[in-house]
């Protein structure tokens, strides 16, 4: 690992200034992806701006219709949060299934979104729930946020501060994990918000994406059976030693069905 300058600002403004002062700065959130990347020498920033000291980026608040999660809130905190469990239990469940307990204690929502790993879990929730990614400069709707593999709409130096999740009527996430890394080989988040169904797929493609045909079918009938006969195209999916594109396409269908069943069961239980 190459050495770098380390800074730990106390405010969002200071963080922006610190970033701009670097020739090649990088924000450090939980570090659960960035530090392994640095260790492998795949990134060599001139400076790291640690966001852990910024109080404003922490915390969870809920209203009737919206759940707001600070960018630096850890997965463990989201998973254990009574507010999240009450408002969007599927989101708590998703957070509790990311990585392993140690990763969940450090990894953050904002870090996960800004990195936009194609097999990360959170992007599926953000996209399916039609959340709004709030930055230090603007509000970015989920549909415009994820732009490609490890690519987002964030500008250089732009910082996620919060994510606003609409409270869903029904929602669930089902993932098929990679046996080694435990990242998603295919993960599907299904949500019905304000009567509209959204289905977001992670792990299977070069970035999180929506499954329009499934959304249309579930809009008509929010039952797993409604998905039968919908073939997911493998054309744009990832293939690696763990899963071919065809298998991923198949898993998307299975996981979507299971997510719908779980979403309906969640409601039944409540």
């Amino acid at each position, binding site marked *: 690992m190459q050495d770098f300058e380390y800074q730990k600002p106390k405010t969002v403004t200071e963080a922006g200034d610190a970033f701009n002062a670097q020739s090649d700065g990088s924000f450090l959130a939980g570090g659960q992806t960035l530090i392994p990347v640095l260790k492998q020498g795949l990134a060599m920033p001139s400076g790291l701006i640690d966001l852990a000291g910024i109080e404003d980026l922490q915390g969870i608040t809920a209203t009737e219709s919206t759940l707001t999660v600070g960018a630096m809130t850890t997965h463990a905190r989201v998973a254990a949060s009574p507010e999240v469990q009450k408002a969007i239990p599927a989101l708590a469940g998703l957070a509790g299934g990311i990585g392993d307990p140690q990763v969940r204690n450090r990894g953050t929502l904002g870090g996960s979104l800004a990195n936009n790993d194609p097999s990360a879990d959170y992007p599926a929730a953000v996209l399916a729930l039609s959340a709004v990614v709030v930055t230090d400069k603007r509000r970015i709707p989920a549909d415009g946020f994820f732009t490609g593999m490890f690519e987002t709409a964030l500008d250089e130096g732009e910082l996620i501060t919060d994510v606003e999740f609409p409270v869903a009527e029904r929602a669930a996430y089902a993932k098929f994990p*990679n*046996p080694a890394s435990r990242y998603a080989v295919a993960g599907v988040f299904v949500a019905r918000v304000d009567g509209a169904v959204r289905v977001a797929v992670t792990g299977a493609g070069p970035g999180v994406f929506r499954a329009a045909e499934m959304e249309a079918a579930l809009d008509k009938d929010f039952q797993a059976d409604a998905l039968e006969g919908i073939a997911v195209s493998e054309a744009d999916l990832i293939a690696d030693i763990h899963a071919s594109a065809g298998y991923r396409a198949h898993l998307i269908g299975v996981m979507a069905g299971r997510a719908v069943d779980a979403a309906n069961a969640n409601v039944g239980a409540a």
Partner: protein
Amino acid sequence: MTDVTIGQPVRRSEDERFLTGRGRYIDDINLEGQARAVVLRSVYAHARIKNIDASGALAMEGVLLVVTGEDWIAEGFGPMPTKTAIRKNRDGSELSEPPRHCLAIGRVRYVGEPVALVVAETDPIARDALDLIDVDYESLDAVTDAVEALAPDAPQLWDDIPGNLCIDFELGDREGVEKAFAEADHVITLDLENNRVTAVPIEPRGCVGSYDPETDTYLLYNSTQNVHAIRDTLAENVFGIDKEKIRHIAPDVGGGFGVKNSAYPEPPLVLYAAKKLGRPVKWINNRSESFLSDTHGRGQTSRVQLAIDNDGTFRALRTETVAGIGAYCWTIGPFTPTGGSARTQGGPYDFPVMYYRSRAVFINTGPMDPYRGAGRPEATFQTERIIEYAARQLGLDPIEIRRKNLMRPEKLPHKTSMGLNIDCGDFPKVFERTLKLADPGSFAERAEQIKTAGRRFGFAIAPYLECTGGGPKEFAGVAFGADGTVSLSVGSQSTGMGHETSMAQLLAARLGIPFERVEYHQADTDKTPIGGGHGGSRGMELGGNAVAQAAGEVIEKASGLAAHLLQSKAADLTFEGGSFKDSGSGASVSMVEVIEASFDSERLPDDLEPGCLDTGSTFERGEISIPNGCHAAAVEVDPKTGAILLLGYWVVDDFGTIINPLLADGQVMGGVAQGIGQVLTENIVFDDSGQLITGSLMDYGLPRADGVPDMVIEYYEGAPTKKNPLGVKGAGEAGCVGSLPAVVNAVLDALKEFGVVHIDIPLTSEKVWRAVQDQGAHDPKGLIEGAL
């Protein structure tokens, strides 16, 4: 103070140190003034080295030394030879062995092969310096598949070894098998793969070396399983010096499983650098480098054929294997796929005749050497898979045909076609006991529930029979201290198996002395004159018997002193329960008292001196033992995703005499978990250019806590072997031997309604799902065709 017995689950002495962070592993050892070494490894699977320019690295501040293959050869150092016990081709000629130097000489033959050693003030500096060494490679075609490597137009690894063939081996009765094949009602054929995996002990390899110019001696701390053999290779083969010039010590070792048994290039490089620089040098592999540079195991492609009659009687077994062993013979690379896999063909079944042929082939990959079981898991897998496959093909009950063909105890001793002398055991009894323990009938209701939920239940039983191995001699030394301590030094080695406890338990039980008084020493070439280390499940069989033999010698010596103390004749004394007793007078004296007296000049006779009870004893094995047993597994499979969940696991083992059942359980559990790992998620994969795809734990799937089931383990102790005085049959590898077929066959049982009869391991979820989609469209012949 505790009295212990043989067979008691004594808790481990080493635990406190490990549980509190006071273990001392290789990376915890730092010598005053040490420099740090890092290895520059080849990024090509096959390439000519046109030039190495290290000037950039040498110019960097903190860089002390760069050693290349040219430097190494200029020093006159020798290659490390293979020590395989199998050396002859079928035609009687010698196997082909290319020279294996510590650094690549002019040509690299696998990704990860050491090209240069860099030594610097710190590890980060040394790693940064790697980027400043400019190696000019000319890429050559590579071959990483063994069957392809045998093809006439395959890239050739060695100019003087035609066809990439290391050895073409056979064993058994070729003609007898052909005759039985012609006569039997059926000959069932199955091609199968035993996938390439690696041990991944959680502690990576590493070493720390120093050189003392005054005595011209080296000191090497090394995370190894085998200090004596490796010391000998370094001294005699590499450096050409007396072996006494190197003291080789293994501190606490964080797992081995065979992978730390090999003679690797890094330790001699470190010793050389230490001498050259006049300061200690430390080298620690990281995990990514470990995947590239540790030895791998299994990796066999085989055609297995079973001759079987309509009534299910086995008539003959024939296996033909092709195995890639990497670019070199390494330590005993050619042994595993040849003799190692041949001996236990046919398992515990009564095969009138068997034949085994195997070719070990050079390929452009890292080295292959023993991994837990080293051939016996492969042989058991081949045998049990063909039986299961034949049962399915012929519509026979897989449990019944096993029951029918198991060797009856009255047939023992029996020498198989493979030359294996099976002396004792009761295979039918162990089989029935396992079946009773697992009670597959009790799963009926659960199986229904599982099916209702869209998944399928499967069960399989897999008897196994294996054999032990490793160095045939072992030393145990016992030395008494005036303070009451008893020092026990043994040449076998624990890398986690708990010898500090079990060996001490054995000595204390035999001598009738308190367990806590025994101080255990191992893995130090200065402490024992010989030592076979750890390998081939030899710990108790060799080390344990050496300890028992040494205990016998101590008792013999002590009886003389006891007679003196009791004013009796030694011949009149009996030793029982830790005391010598005069059968005439009834007078007795305990071993503890005799030991005390041996340090008391008042009580010692004139012709004895303090320390007179000390002994050093070498035990020599007559024949390897035959551990055997039976595994059973229950699984559920989700045909929609291909996901597999282990529901239950049962084992009955015959390890002969059990010294410490707690530790034996641990060996079985760990071995089964490694077998489950290989079957489900572990797999070494290279791409076409020879790059390792599964080079980190992000891609190489080790079993986690949620993937291994609870196991029920019992022992059959009715057949202690007479091949060694303790009656033990090695326990260390058996878990790995039985688990491969048990799990695979259980999964295939779950999939039988889909017509799935075979899937090559690992049973990844995609492969399982595809097999279900294909409704069993399996070609039993295809994998090895090109090589036959």
